[in-house]
C-alpha cells in the first residue's frame, strides 16, 4: 500500500481498497463518502492531520526503534515510561479536537501486546512469530495504514468454552491449515473503526485451554480479503448523520468510533501474516496484555472528551444565564474533578509501567484496570451532571428544521433564546453537542469498551494482592492464626 501521510491520502486509500460493507441492509458502494461513515473517517483522519503539525508532532509521532524513522505514534512500540505517558497525553489531545473516538488505539494496543507476547511464545515454543511480527511492524510503520484490533468474538453461550459451542463459528477459528497458510471462519463483534480501516488483527478473545487450539489464532488480514463482510452497527440518532444538520451535535466527528460486525467466511491468510496458531497457553497472557494496554487509554481519551463535556455544559449554562449560580459552579467543579481523576489513573498506570522481556514497555495492569473501571462510573456521573446543568431542554429541543421553517421558525427563535447577545441557533448547537456526547451509544461505549466492568473486577481479584494485605493487617493487629 502507498504510504499514508495526509488526510487526503487516507480518504483516497479508503476509496481504493474495495471492501464489502452493509449499512442498514444495503451494500455500500463508496465507504469514503458514505454519510454514515464520514464523521468516523474525519475522526481517524485527525490522527494523520495532527501528526503533520509542528505544534502536535511531539505527541503524535515517535522514532521507530526498528528503523530510526519518524513514524505515527499509533504504530510505535513503547520504548520507555515516557512513551507510555505520551500515549495518554496524545489521546487527550486528539479528544480535544474531535470530541469523539478516533479508533486507532485498538490496533496500536494490539501491536504492542503482540510484540511482547510473540517474543515470549518463541522463547517457550521455539517458534518464529516475533521475527515475522517485526516484519509486519516495519510494514505498518512505513505504510501507516489503519489497523483494527479484532478481539471480541460473538461468544454464543457464555457458559461454554469455544470448543463446546453448538455453532463452532461463534469463536473465530482456523478451519483448515495449509502449506501456504490458514483458512479462518467466524466473526469479530463491536469492531471500532472497521469500516474505515485497511486491515484487522484478529486476536483470541479469552484465555483458552487444551481442546481450543483452533481458536488460538492471531493473524493480520486485509479487510478486502475474499470472504470478509462488514455490517455496520446502528448508533443512537444514526439518521442525524445523514441530515448533517446541527441536530447531529458533533457534525464533523460523530459519536464514538463507528462499530461493525466483521464476518470471516473461509478467509485465507498466508503464514507470514500469522502470529499465533494453536499456542493456547499464551492466549490468557495476550488477552490480559491487550486489555491492560487498552484500559490504560481511557483516562486519556475519555478524560479529553470529559473536558469538552465540561466546556459545553458551562456554555449551556452561560447561554441561559445560570453560569454564576453557585450550584452550577459546584457541578462544573465536580465534573472537572472526575475528569482529572480518570486522567490521573491513565498517567499513573503509565508512570508505573515496566519493561517486558521483548524490550517493550507495559503499563501497571492493576492501575490500568482501575482506570477503565472508573470510566464505567465517572463518565456516567459527568454526563448526569451535564444533564442537570443543561436542563430539560436537552431532551425537548425542537428540530433544526423547525428553526429554519418559514412559519414556525420565529417561535423557535423567540422561545428557545437564552441571554441577549447569543443567538438561538448557537444555544441549540451547544445543547445538541451535549446531547450527542452524554447519552445512548456514547455512554454504553464507556461501560463496555475495552471490556465490561466485571472483567476489570476479575483482574482486581487476581492482581489485588489480597493475601499480602491480610498479612499486613495481621501484623498490625498482632494476630497469628
Amino acid at each position, binding site marked *: 500500500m502507498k504510504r499514508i501521510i495526509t488526510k487526503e491520502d487516507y480518504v483516497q486509500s479508503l476509496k481504493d481498497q474495495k471492501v464489502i460493507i452493509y449499512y442498514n441492509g444495503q451494500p455500500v458502494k463508496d465507504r469514503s463518502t458514505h454519510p454514515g461513515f464520514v464523521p468516523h473517517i474525519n475522526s481517524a483522519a485527525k490522527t494523520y492531520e495532527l501528526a503533520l503539525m*509542528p*505544534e*502536535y*508532532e*511531539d*505527541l*503524535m509521532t515517535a522514532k521507530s526503534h526498528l528503523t530510526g524513522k519518524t513514524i505515527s505514534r499509533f504504530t510505535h512500540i513503547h520504548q520507555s515510561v*515516557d512513551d507510555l505517558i*505520551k500515549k495518554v*497525553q*496524545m489521546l*487527550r*489531545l486528539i479528544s*480535544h479536537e474531535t470530541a469523539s473516538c478516533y479508533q486507532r488505539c485498538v490496533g496500536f494496543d494490539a501491536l504492542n501486546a503482540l510484540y511482547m507476547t510473540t517474543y515470549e511464545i518463541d522463547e517457550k515454543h521455539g517458534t518464529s512469530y516475533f521475527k515475522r511480527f517485526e516484519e509486519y511492524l516495519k510494514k505498518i510503520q512505513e505504510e501507516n495504514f489503519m489497523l483494527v484490533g479484532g478481539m471480541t468474538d460473538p461468544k454464543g453461550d457464555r457458559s461454554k468454552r469455544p470448543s463446546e459451542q453448538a455453532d463452532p463459528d461463534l469463536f473465530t477459528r482456523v478451519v483448515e491449515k495449509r502449506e501456504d497458510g490458514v483458512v479462518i471462519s467466524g466473526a469479530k463483534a463491536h469492531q471500532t473503526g472497521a469500516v474505515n480501516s485497511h486491515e484487522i488483527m484478529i486476536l483470541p478473545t479469552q484465555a483458552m485451554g487444551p481442546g481450543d487450539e483452533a481458536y488460538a489464532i492471531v493473524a493480520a488480514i486485509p479487510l478486502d480479503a475474499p470472504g470478509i463482510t462488514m455490517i455496520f452497527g446502528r448508533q443512537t440518532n444514526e439518521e442525524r448523520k445523514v441530515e448533517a444538520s446541527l441536530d447531529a451535535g458533533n457534525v464533523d466527528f460523530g459519536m464514538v468510533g463507528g462499530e461493525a460486525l466483521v464476518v470471516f467466511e473461509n478467509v485465507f491468510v498466508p503464514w507470514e501474516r500469522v502470529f499465533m496458531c494453536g499456542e493456547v497457553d499464551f492466549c490468557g497472557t495476550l488477552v490480559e496484555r491487550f486489555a491492560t494496554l487498552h484500559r490504560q487509554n481511557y483516562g486519556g481519551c475519555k478524560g479529553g472528551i470529559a*473536558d469538552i463535556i465540561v466546556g459545553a455544559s458551562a456554555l449551556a449554562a452561560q447561554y441561559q444565564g445560570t453560569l454564576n449560580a453557585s450550584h452550577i459552579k459546584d457541578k462544573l467543579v465536580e465534573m472537572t474533578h472526575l475528569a482529572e481523576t480518570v486522567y490521573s489513573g491513565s498517567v499513573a498506570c503509565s508512570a508505573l509501567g515496566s519493561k517486558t522481556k521483548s524490550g517493550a514497555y507495559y503499563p501497571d495492569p492493576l492501575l490500568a484496570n482501575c482506570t477503565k473501571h472508573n470510566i464505567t462510573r465517572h463518565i456516567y456521573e459527568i454526563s448526569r451532571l451535564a444533564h442537570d446543568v443543561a436542563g430539560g431542554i436537552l431532551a425537548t429541543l425542537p428540530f433544526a428544521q423547525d428553526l429554519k421553517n418559514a412559519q414556525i421558525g420565529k417561535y423557535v427563535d423567540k422561545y428557545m433564546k437564552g441571554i441577549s447577545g447569543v443567538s438561538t441557533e448557537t444555544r441549540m448547537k451547544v445543547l445538541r453537542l451535549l446531547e450527542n456526547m452524554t447519552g445512548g451509544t456514547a455512554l454504553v461505549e464507556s461501560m463496555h469498551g475495552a471490556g465490561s466492568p466485571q472483567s476489570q473486577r476479575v483482574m482486581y481479584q487476581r492482581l489485588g494482592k489480597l493475601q499480602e494485605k491480610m498479612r499486613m493487617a495481621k501484623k498490625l493487629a498482632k494476630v497469628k492464626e
Partner: protein
Amino acid sequence: MKRVALKYCGGCDCTYDRLEYVEKIKKAAEGRIEWVKMDNGRFDTVLMIHGCPVACPEQNLDPGHPWRIISVIDDRVAPEEIIKILLE
C-alpha cells in the same frame, strides 16, 4: 538575521492558546528573526513553546546540547519582551 528554532510541546492540555501567542511573538519580531524548525541545524537559539509548566520537550533535551534555550510556559510575558530576550 537572527535565526531561532521554534519548538512546540505536544499540546496535550494547554493552559493558553499557543498558536495565537506565537503569532503575536512573530509579529513583535518585525522581521528581525528568521524562524526555523529544529531539524534545520543552522541556529543557536531555540524558543520552546510549552502548553504548561511540565515543559516536556525541555526535559527530554540532551544535556550536552549546544543551544541557548528560551522557554515559555504561559502567555504572561509580553511578546516584545520575548523578542528582546531572543535578540540579546
